[in-house]
């Protein structure tokens, strides 16, 4: 269960202050598939990054599994990101000099990698239909294949929450649809809480719940 209590986030841009999120209150149940929808600059990515512990709130609380992550130390936040969260980014963010399998295994490097991880990585790569590319140079892969690699990487440490920030934003419509379908299937199979930030209402429709955000405030 994720509880967001009255969080605000303000950025400093030069001499001025920009309020990215204002008094957000939200609850997301365990295993829920949620889409956060809003136009560009509405604050949906900021909300996602705050949930993932990649940035700190200006005020408010984010309770994940009964713990306020806003109070976590840097080390605790790193552990939280490693164990509890799987990130999928719009720009894939794959390591250019690692193979597909090495990219998938990347989070395990910071969590005592074991032989089981190797086997699980191979299983996930099969699930995202990249078995034929397992040892390939990541740079030879298409955008869709890179995103599938990133999805497998997000799942490697068996997280409870997947945070996907515009996961189809850099893909063509057909590939984007395939990725969304893959995410939906993985959500069903693994029972993971899935939170997708998108500006595309069509993609949002696959989610169990849609949360609209505009100018840093929730609309519904």
């Amino acid at each position, binding site marked *: 269960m994720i509880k967001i209590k009255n969080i605000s986030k303000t950025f400093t841009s030069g001499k001025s202050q920009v309020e990215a999120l204002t008094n957000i209150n939200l609850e997301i149940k365990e295993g829920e598939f949620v889409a956060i929808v809003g136009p560009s600059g509405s604050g949906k*990515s900021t909300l996602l*990054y705050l949930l*993932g512990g*990649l*940035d700190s709130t200006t005020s408010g609380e984010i309770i994940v599994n009964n713990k306020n992550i806003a109070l976590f130390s*840097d*080390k605790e936040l*790193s*552990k939280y*990101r*490693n*164990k509890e969260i799987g*990130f999928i*980014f719009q720009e894939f*963010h794959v*390591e*250019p*000099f*690692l193979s597909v399998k090495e990219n998938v295994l*990347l*989070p395990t*490097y*910071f*969590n005592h*990698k074991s032989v089981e991880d190797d086997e699980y990585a191979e299983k996930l790569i099969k699930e995202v239909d990249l078995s034929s590319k397992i040892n390939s140079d990541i740079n030879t892969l298409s955008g869709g294949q890179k995103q599938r690699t990133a999805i497998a*990487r997000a799942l490697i*440490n068996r997280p409870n929450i997947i945070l996907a920030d515009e996961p189809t934003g850099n893909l063509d419509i057909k590939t984007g649809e395939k990725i969304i379908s893959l995410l939906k299937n993985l959500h069903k199979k693994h029972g993971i809480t899935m939170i997708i930030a998108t500006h595309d209402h069509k993609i949002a429709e696959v989610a169990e719940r849609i949360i609209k955000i505009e100018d840093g405030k929730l609309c519904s």
Partner: protein
Amino acid sequence: MLLNLSLQNIKERKFRSILGIISIAIGVASIVIFLGLSQGIKTATFKEMEKSSPLTQITVHPNTSKSGVVSLLNTSGGNRLDKTAIEKISNISGVKEVYPEIQFNEFASLEAGILGFSFITDAMLFGLPEEFLKEDIPECAEIPCDTWHTNAPPYPAIVPRKLLDMYNFALAIPQGLPLLNEKNLIGKKIMLYPKYSTFFPEVNKKTEEIELKVVGFSDKVNLIGVTLPYEFVQDLNKKYAPTSEEQYLEFFIETESPDLTADIAKQIEDLGYSANYLQKNLQEVEAKFKYLSISLGIISLIILISSTIAIMSTFLAVAMERKREIGLLRAVGATKTHIKMLILFEAGIIGIAGSILGIILGGLSSMVFDHFAISQLSSTTFTPTTLFSITPLLVISALIFGTLLSILSAYLPAKKAAEINPFEALR
């Protein structure tokens, strides 16, 4: 795994990695060259000093600090070098032999034909026991050693080795004359004219000529003349300076062991004489070498500071270039320490590679310089086998130092990289 990531990063950023390796290599090479040279010159100098004064040798003079120079020249006073002094010193436990040195107490001139020219010059004649001299002329090829003390000419003459340097550098090179070496001169005949001076008209008449033969060169003998067997100079004094008092110029003391030298020297000083020995001289020379080491150290330090700045700026640029990668690593669970370690591992690998390259470059440069310098010194009597002392300790120290320098230089950039906000890096 972090090491694997570091290696991959080094491979991917070849140009920057090579720049880092070169920076370290220059710094380490300078350490190897300068410290190797400083230590090498020191070792070569010590070896050279050991030639003229072995570790078991003490040179004894009248104590000039107590009696003064005038007193030394007159050899009057309580601490004169005479037979009583020989007896006193011989009685010191650990003294193996006392070799006294005398001089011819009259004018003398030497004439020699060298390189087609005939030279005649005033010269001082010194006498030393043949046992002491023979150590430097082991073969006795020119005049059999067992006949040195006979009264038949030619008599053996030993020339100071440094005299060759003086001729070659002060005369031959400026005047364009052929250089001389020991081989040219051994076996050369010299005519000795006792009680004859080329300077003073009152003794400008050759009364007798005695044939000498150069039998060898020594670093121990007096620099300002030619040294002959002790008995021969004694005989010359009896004949040409019978009224002069028998006195010794200096004593060469041979001790039973190098460990006893300092203690015996102390006892000799307690008797009122001045005693010099290699270990004491080495300390003084070593103190003087500190200046050379400090100077070369400062040059190395300047080069190292430049290397440090170069590495620091390289890693700062790398950290900024890798903002997104660092953001991703943070997103998948890397702590600040992981990021720091990642950069420092890279710096360590670059440091090791740069240090190895620097050691090889330093070693090769030293060999080239050494070859050139030694060939230049071949015309002198200072002929060390090498001017560099690149010891395993120096190599290991340079390797450790270069690696640590690289790691320390990368510490600030690593800290900066660890502070990168993942949110800002990934957006």
